[in-house]
């Protein structure tokens, strides 16, 4: 009688324990949804293991994992730079760290294209396997302690369940996929690349890459912008901003016939683009071909509410002035 009661109690206890374990495990699983996702489907065309051993390592000084991480990917992309040089461009002493936006901005000053990845583990793996080391922002703190940290993902071995990072003082930190995702998730899966201007990231989208290039153009050198816009146009020939960007670079360097040829192609694809028509008309006028320029600028002025109508009217006035002077 008594024995039976004890057995019943034990069984109940075991049931509670099993339930507890199950809920802890399923709770854990929900902490790393993307790692769980990989169990269902490994991304197509991505190898199961890879490592970019060529990526250099800089051990970080004090709180300067930002400059160190940035230097690693930038040297790998062909820039001669050191963490010390970058410290003055990304480190904020009073915050004892580096902001994400400054990590993106600093690389542009060295003619690199900073590309922020979509917040997906699949994309991170795809970039690493395509040969691009990825800077990630992790929160390596536990519980209430927040500890933001930049590291560089240089490889992974899925069958072994590990990612390889250059992190802090560790030139090759092996970290389980689960732990990595837990720390990475808190930054909203923030990840970036520093690409040479003629190489497009494996996971780049047209819009994302176009904004990345045009952000670099603000502070980069003309040759870099030219190479980047050329690469962008090769991949996405219909991109109107890339056409305008490339043509503006040619124009600024006095290579007007090249600017014309780029804009002609763009005008053929986008006959309603006012900036394209305006810039083409302006270029032709500078080449002394006002007769060809005039109908183009008139075409540009047809939609009167266009944001660039004012610029087009200026160009029209310029063309008419030049024509009357030549008569």
């Amino acid at each position, binding site marked *: 009688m008594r024995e039976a009661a004890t057995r019943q109690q034990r069984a109940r206890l075991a049931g509670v324990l099993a339930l507890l374990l199950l809920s802890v495990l399923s709770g854990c699983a929900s902490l790393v949804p993307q790692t769980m996702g990989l169990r269902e489907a490994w991304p197509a065309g991505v190898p199961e293991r890879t490592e970019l051993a060529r990526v250099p390592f800089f051990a970080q000084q004090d709180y300067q994992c930002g400059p160190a991480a940035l230097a690693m990917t930038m040297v790998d992309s062909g820039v001669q730079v050191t963490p010390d040089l970058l410290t003055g461009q990304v480190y904020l002493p009073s915050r004892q760290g580096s902001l994400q936006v400054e990590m993106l901005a600093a690389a542009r000053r060295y003619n690199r294209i900073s590309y922020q990845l979509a917040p997906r583990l699949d994309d991170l793996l795809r970039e690493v396997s395509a040969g691009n080391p990825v800077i990630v922002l992790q929160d390596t703190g536990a519980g209430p302690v927040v500890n933001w940290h930049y590291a560089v993902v240089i490889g992974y071995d899925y069958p072994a369940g590990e990612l390889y990072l250059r992190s802090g003082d560790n030139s090759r*930190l092996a970290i389980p996929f689960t732990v990595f995702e837990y720390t990475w998730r808190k930054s909203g899966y923030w990840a970036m690349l520093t690409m040479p201007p003629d190489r497009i990231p494996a996971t780049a989208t047209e819009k994302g890459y176009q*904004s990345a290039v045009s*952000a670099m153009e603000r502070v980069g050198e003309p040759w870099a912008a030219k190479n980047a816009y050329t690469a962008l146009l090769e991949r996405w020939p219909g991109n109107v901003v890339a056409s305008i960007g490339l043509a503006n670079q040619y124009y600024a360097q006095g290579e007007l016939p090249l600017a014309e040829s780029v804009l002609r192609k763009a005008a053929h694809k986008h006959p309603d683009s006012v900036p394209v028509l305006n810039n083409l008309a302006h270029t032709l006028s500078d080449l002394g071909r006002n007769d060809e320029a005039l109908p183009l600028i008139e075409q540009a002025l047809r939609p009167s509410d266009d944001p660039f109508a004012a610029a087009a009217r200026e160009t029209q006035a310029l063309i008419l002035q030049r024509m009357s002077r030549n008569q």
Partner: protein
Amino acid sequence: MTRTFKNMLCHLIAVAIFIAPFQTSQAGMIGTQQAASITTSADADRSVVINFLQRSQTVSEFQSLGLDAEAATSRVAAMSDGEVSALAGKINAVPAGGDGLVVLILVVFIIWYFAFRR
């Protein structure tokens, strides 16, 4: 009052000098940045003004965090318009990655480490 005003004016001028070359291309040619960002004519002027103010605000914030004027200006100049507007007023709230110490000490991680790694 006068000092605050002078400071603000200095920032505005500093930013103006730096961003002026990027705002307009050759006279008559429409710049790439403009072509990429402007979608309606109402946007055109407003976005230029708003961005100008946000840039100067961000430069001041960087200076209040201990950067000198030149560094602050060139650091803000390397940001895109969208990045500046996302950052303006939030410099102390956004994450700053710094520490390299990996403090993954929770017991659950140890269990996890041995239980499943991928």
